């Protein structure tokens, strides 16, 4: 397989690597970066075919992307944010904290993708409604919670992020 040298900026760190052109961003994050730094296994593989959203990360514009459908070489020179970027100095991101507070986490496998999708959503639309949250989360499957506490958590995070922004 052909390879290409690429540079990725993941969670603020620069990585220079030689990747096969068929390698997905998810594979690079989960398995290849582990050889250079702590592996970024927080991003999960649920289906590998873009159907479940467990692999959701954010691109340079803070849009959510499916890392299992994104070829790593296409991200050359780009910034990527994973679940590992959210916690700052031991403080959880408001979305993370809301997931903990509301009990929106059961098996936890969809959680990193669900959290990243919600972060992107709230950054783009700070006034998002419950209906919009439900529509936006359609691409992230959770089999444990019935989405009830997840939607509640995103609403709590929305309110808290707005309150913080207003200060």
């Amino acid at each position, binding site marked *: 397989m052909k390879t290409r040298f690429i540079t990725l900026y993941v969670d603020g760190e620069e990585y220079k690597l030689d990747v096969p052109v068929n390698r997905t961003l998810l594979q690079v994050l989960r398995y290849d970066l582990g050889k250079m730094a702590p592996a970024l296994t927080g991003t999960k593989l649920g*289906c590998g075919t873009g159907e479940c959203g467990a692999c959701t990360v954010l691109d340079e514009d803070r849009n959510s992307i499916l890392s299992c459908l994104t070829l790593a070489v296409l991200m050359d020179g780009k910034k990527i944010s994973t679940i590992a970027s959210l916690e700052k100095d031991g403080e959880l991101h408001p979305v993370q904290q809301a997931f903990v507070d509301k009990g929106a986490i*059961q098996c936890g496998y969809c959680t990193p993708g669900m959290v990243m999708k919600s972060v992107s959503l709230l950054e783009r639309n700070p006034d998002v409604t419950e209906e919009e949250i439900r529509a936006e989360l359609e691409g992230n499957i959770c089999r444990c919670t019935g989405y009830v506490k997840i939607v509640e958590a995103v609403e709590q995070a929305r309110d808290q992020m707005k309150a913080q922004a207003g200060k």
Partner: protein
Amino acid sequence: MSEFSVVGKRVPKVDARAKVTGRALYADDIYIPGMLYGRIVRCWEYAHAKVKKIDVSEAKNMPGVVKILLPEDTSGYPSYNSGTMDMFASDELNATWGELGEQVIFTDHVKHQGDAICGIVAKSEEQAERAVEKIRVDYEPLPVYLTAEESKQPDAVPFHPDKPNNMAYKVPGVIFPEGYYGYGDVDKGLDEADLVYDETFYVPKQKQCQMEPHCYIALFDDKNRLNVWTSTQMPKPVHNKLSRIFGLPMTQVKVNQTVIGGAFGGRLGLVGEPATCAMAMAVPGRPIKVNYTREEDWVASESRNPGFWKLKMGFKKDGTPVAYDANFTTLKGGYYTHAGVVFVSGILARAHYKFENWRYDGASYFTNQAPCGAFRGYGNPQQSFAMEQLIQRMCNETGIDPVEWHMKWHRDIGEDIYGFGVPIQSCGAKEALQKGAEAFKWKEKRKKYANQTGVKRRGIGMMLGVHASAGFPVLLEHTVATVKLNEDATAVVNCSISDLGCGNHTAITQIAAETLGFPMEDVFLLAGDSDANAFDIGAHSSRTIWTAGLAVKEACEDAVRQILEKAAKFLKVDPKDLEMKDKKIFVKDNPAQVVDLADMLWKGIYAFMDPETFQFPFERGQIIGKGDFMPFANNPAWYACFVEAEVDMETGAWKLIDCCYVNDIGKAIHPPSVEGQLEGGIQQGIGYALTEEIYYDANGLCLNNNFTDYKMLGPSDMPRCDIHLLETPEPYGPYGGRGAGEGGLIGPVAAAANAISDAAGVQITEGPITPEKILKAIKEKGR
């Protein structure tokens, strides 16, 4: 004001932070230096075939290939039952279902699409995948059996040497000499009934769809120990099974349970452990990871038993239930796994209502589809789909309010509801119905939606349900737990109990902290380590709180007893006169006489003699409490579920409006976990009733092994969920708690089906109740 200090509190889950930061380690997150990657070569082309020849000549020369394991390389290992059914039940009960060990690691008889043919170990996952493509298998296709009728023909290819007519399991026989499970005279009851309903329901094949695909790591190390990393629901039975399959003493097998990314029955017993371990045994010293793709997960792990539920029910005009006569024929798929589901389905049906006469029979037939076994609810959703729809039909005809019928005829305290001589000691059915009907505004809605016309029509449906709190008295219920008190007055609970994500580890820690009188942060639960943990059958049958909860409570009570005895010796009083609070032990009548727990535990371990008196200040020794528990009761949680739906009469499309779910949990040890399981159960239960089924083509090949073609309810499809936890008195469960896990899924099944039929005016007997079926029924009725 709660009487408990930790139990019942909405504490953060013990695993929440690790999961929300992405730091929790699931099996595929674990990398061990020197790791190799295994792939299982599966038969994707046929659902039934004989393997004639495997040509590995090209594959073995592919880059990175380390080892190829053929069926003959693993044929020395004994065959096994992946469901570990033989470990759940007594030898006598085992004898009734015959030899189950029909599964081999790699087979030459493909019984379903995706059956395992051979294994490849390579240096990378991609190299293993590429080598799989180069394996050439010659198959001799065999006739494909997709129904019981096809499979039981006399000339059909046998799936199992001990199972004539390809019948995997049949209910009566040795256990029921009269030939069926039940009581009374059903034929007479049906003769005397005023109203008799006779219907055959089809209940679909549902997939667990847990979000973490199956993934395993195995390493046969330099101490000749077989180390396995797996997210199994039952580490101890897997521990023993692997030791027997690979001929190693249990001390030479170590099961490390990884964080479980959902299970719902799909990780019950053995799934990919034997194949992964066989690869590890073939390449000693190298850790081998086998990571299933989603489509492999779909075909290679068990799903819900589908089949035909024939049900005849007789009632008096006033609704008195006089006769129940049922037969459930399930399609087993290629392997036995949990064929007993068909029996449990009958037991759970019987548990519900006071029918005067009762008869149940059922059988499972091998077919060429992915194996069916354990899935949350274990037979109860199937029976509920049938029985509750016929009850609704009777209520519609007689004009009886279904809530009142359920209120009147549910089984109650003192009744032997399962039929095995174990009366229930508590029952919150009436309270659940009452609370639910009020919260849902049942009476008002019933009136409002009675005579609708127009394109979009609303309807309401309800059901009452009951599920076990454990497997007792049918299945083995045994958990051993210890609690070790450290010298700083903190505690480590040692128990093998699994947390499938439902919050079990949080709730068990709460039970331990409550019993010890410690703050929650001073208690740590050590689970998932087969070397350290004593026996526990594993997480299934909604049993964790009931059995493991009581085992841990017993261990902690034993520790408290030892604390009081030790302090009593020091204070020279009777232990009965002592009390412990905030880690201080004092004399009840004289609180000034006090011992500090941390001081006493420290000096019990760092036990220095007084140089003058040659005495120890406290009795020497570290306190370890033990609980070795089997329940002798099984008081189930009753639940009432109410659903409101809207049906478009022109398209058959439905929309879910409301779901009110009341569960008589007894005591919610960790309320968010119970609510969460019920809310998640609504997604799975309504999905089972309305959208979810695995479809096969005429050749037995799966048509929808992915999340696009297999439709689960998404966030926008969900109804508004209104959860109520009832806490009616429970004399036996830990702090009054009952089992919660499975009930969550069961209630919404029939409640949703009934709401749809109430709205559309047609009852659909074939699940899942899709718009196409609704529209067809509406048109047929209009004709």
